[in-house]
């Protein structure tokens, strides 16, 4: 058990190091100078611009050699200091992230969990049921093959523009400020629904298809046939098949997390939903090194932690892994 976890942790640490390094590198290799971009928004006399450019280049620590910037960056990361945003100066990156994180989590967590549960249930239910299978299969394939962004645009167009029943942008209406009332909560949910739905549907399709295929496979397995020949009820056989089919789906969840994170980013952009993805897009457009780093750092940590959680979950649900680790197989 210890060795297993130790090895896992080492892999995670290495992944983290590489991902964060790339995260640091990429914005700096983008052409352009963020301080200049920021200052170009005001027209001043030449001397004033030169003075300000010097001042802010120093303030953001961009006047030291690149290797030193890299070391400073790691030091800051370990101190939990993500720096000051350039684009949203003078806000600190950490406080900007804190404002955006609740929206991303409110979108992602229900979408991932509900689509996984509902997709698996529905896939298992639909397998080997002719008419359902015939409808589920094409719809599921269609959904899972749809890019998140495209489905988002489609939903926004259909429900936001044509039917005009859902808002297509923002997290809550302009005539309100956040407060506790049914009106506000309704408004919040009303804005949340479409981005949630577009994430949910794409993932739902994928899980349902996967589960349906797994169940069919498991129903063909020897243990199912054996149970069947013993005269066990179909319900019971399906129950065992479902349990076995779950395992690859859990692995699938771990593998999918990265893709889902990217999906959430584009969905937030489509709906201008003020989460991390939306923020990241603006950070990139404005070449805000520190905000880009912060957003990616958050996503990297989120994906790694979720992966780790799935690893642990796997140990809990699959007795074989547990036994394998303590060497009692």
């Amino acid at each position: 058990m210890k060795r297993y976890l130790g090895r896992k942790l080492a892999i995670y640490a290495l992944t983290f190091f590489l991902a964060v390094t790339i995260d640091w590198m990429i914005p700096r290799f983008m052409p352009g100078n963020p301080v200049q971009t920021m200052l170009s928004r005001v027209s001043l006399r030449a001397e004033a611009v030169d003075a300000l450019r010097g001042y802010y280049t120093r303030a953001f620590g961009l006047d030291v050699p690149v290797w030193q910037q890299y070391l400073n960056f790691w030091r800051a990361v370990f101190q939990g200091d993500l720096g000051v945003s350039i684009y949203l100066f003078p806000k600190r990156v950490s406080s900007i992230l804190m404002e955006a994180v609740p929206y991303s989590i409110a979108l992602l967590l229900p979408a991932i969990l509900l689509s996984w549960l509902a997709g698996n249930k529905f896939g298992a239910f639909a397998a080997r049921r002719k008419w359902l299978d015939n409808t589920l299969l094409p719809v599921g394939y269609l959904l899972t093959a749809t890019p998140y962004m495209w489905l988002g645009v489609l939903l926004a167009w259909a429900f936001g523009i044509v039917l005009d029943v859902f808002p297509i942008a923002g997290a809550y209406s302009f005539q309100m400020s956040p407060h506790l009332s049914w009106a506000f909560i309704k408004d919040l949910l009303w804005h949340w629904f479409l981005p949630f739905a577009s994430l949910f549907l794409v993932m739902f399709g994928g899980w349902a298809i996967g589960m349906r295929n797994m169940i069919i496979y498991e129903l063909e397995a020897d243990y199912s046939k054996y149970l069947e020949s013993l005269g066990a009820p179909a319900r019971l056989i399906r129950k065992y098949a479902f349990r076995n089919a779950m395992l690859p789906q859990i692995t699938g969840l771990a593998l999918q997390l990265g893709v889902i994170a990217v999906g959430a980013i584009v969905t937030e952009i489509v709906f201008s939903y003020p989460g991390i993805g939306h923020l990241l897009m603006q950070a990139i457009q404005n070449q805000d090194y520190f905000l880009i780093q912060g957003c990616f750092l958050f996503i990297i940590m989120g994906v790694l932690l979720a992966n780790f959680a799935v690893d642990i979950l796997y140990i809990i649900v699959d007795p074989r892994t547990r036994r394998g680790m303590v060497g009692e197989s």
Partner: protein
Amino acid sequence: MRKWLVVALTVGLAGLLALGQVYPRNETLYVSGAAWGPPTDWNPFITWSKANTSGTVGLIYETLYFYDPINDELIPWLAESGEWRTDTVFVVKLRDGLTWQDGKPLTAEDVVFTFELGREYAEIWFSPRWDYLESVTAVDPLTVEFSFKGTVLYQEFQSDLYNVAIVPEHIWAGRSREDITSGANGQPVGSGAYRYLTHAQDRNVYVRNEDWWGTKLLGLKPAPKYIVEILFSSNNVALGSLLKGELDLSNNFLPGIGSLTALGYVKTYLPQPPYMLSANTAVLFLNTTKKPLDDPAFRKALAHAINVDDIINYAFAGLVQRADPTGLLPTMSKYVDQNVVARLGFAYNPTQARQLLAAAGYKDVDGDGFVEAPDGSKIALEVTCPFGWTDWMEAIRVIAASARAAGINIQDRTPDYGVWNTALVTGTFDMTLNNWASLSNTPWTLYNLLFNHPIRETMGSGNFGRYDNPQLFALVDQLAGTPPWDEAGMKAICSQIQEIMLNELPMIPLWYNGLWAQYREDVWQNFPGATEGRPHWLPSTWAGYWQMGGLHMLCELKPVP
């Protein structure tokens, strides 16, 4: 575990309850178009972010003067009057009875304190004024005396009068350097007609200051109790919102507004094309350090080859108008020397463009349809603008196409903003569009952009094409140092600048970008307009425009009964 969650949720939600509210529609003005990003600070000394909290100066903090561009007139605001006692002494009398939003009186000491901040901190944008400012002193609680030394840049100081926001000494005095020069100033206390209420990533909300001094002293009262300033995700959303009557005033660029105005869906300042007032000049900067753009004859031919009418019709659907060859905005037209323009001005004329090219030795030698330089080398130029600026992207397409039609090989390219910006300030571009000189009270603003000098490695705020002409630079400096009461002197210098500019044509002014403004009068009426009976103020909520008519517009609004 679950219990803790419930407690945490309750506390959190109770916190929200304490803050929140719903704004009644008939007391709220919804506006958009000022911000390009989420609000981050309410510090009047950080200038580049003020677009995102445009009410910081004008609504919350106020300036000594306001400025009315339509009548080219400074309006005494915090100041009751101002007088140049001598060439180097300017005395401002403050109004009696000014108060801060916390009830404390606003006095001469606050004005002195504000200007002194510029002396102390080089990071503050008006800090370079202290090159020629000797002292700012409070003679008595209502009198401030500015005395100057050396070369006084009167033109610059004159626009500071309506741009430097006065801050309360009793709140700012104890702050650190960092707080003053780059702090967010999250709870701004100003002297203005509105207070900061709240904000989110996509909005700013202001609430009327019921104790505003202006109601007592000027008899002005802005009509909307709340102003919600919205950052829309795209201009299409803004348009949809406007047409539904959810948005009252949009200062976004919305192509096609012309036809909507004609159909009566929205109102604009002018009832006929170009519908909008002019806000700034779009100038085609030419990199004069590159061949063949270093040749005035070539530049002149190019100016005749660009079909500006096509830009106006296709890129802007008729919402802009052609710029004067001098580039000066219509509000500055009295500084245009019409004789110079008549002699040296240019207009779209492809035939003449070809003649000018031929006369200067540019001929199509290899028969590919494009001219070669007199030394036989091929000419291939690029014209750029940032990607995503759809109107400008169309404009440079027209520029390139009309130049090619006249025999000059130009291609249009749209790099990302960062790349474009770097090329602009480091001088690696061939030709590019720029409009960074905004509406102001002096022609010097434009010339400071066009002929920014000296030439440095990074040209961050003008003269991107690095046109080097000491004689012209001296004239621009001379203009900057001309006192505002010497209008004849200003005109004489402008005439000389225009003579050189139109002879040399180091850059080509093309059109005036509009002061985009379209309104629906479902909830509020009496928005500004050029027609009889409408208030003549600039209908804008952009940063810097609240004190150029925006606040007056609010005072003229009336609720629809």
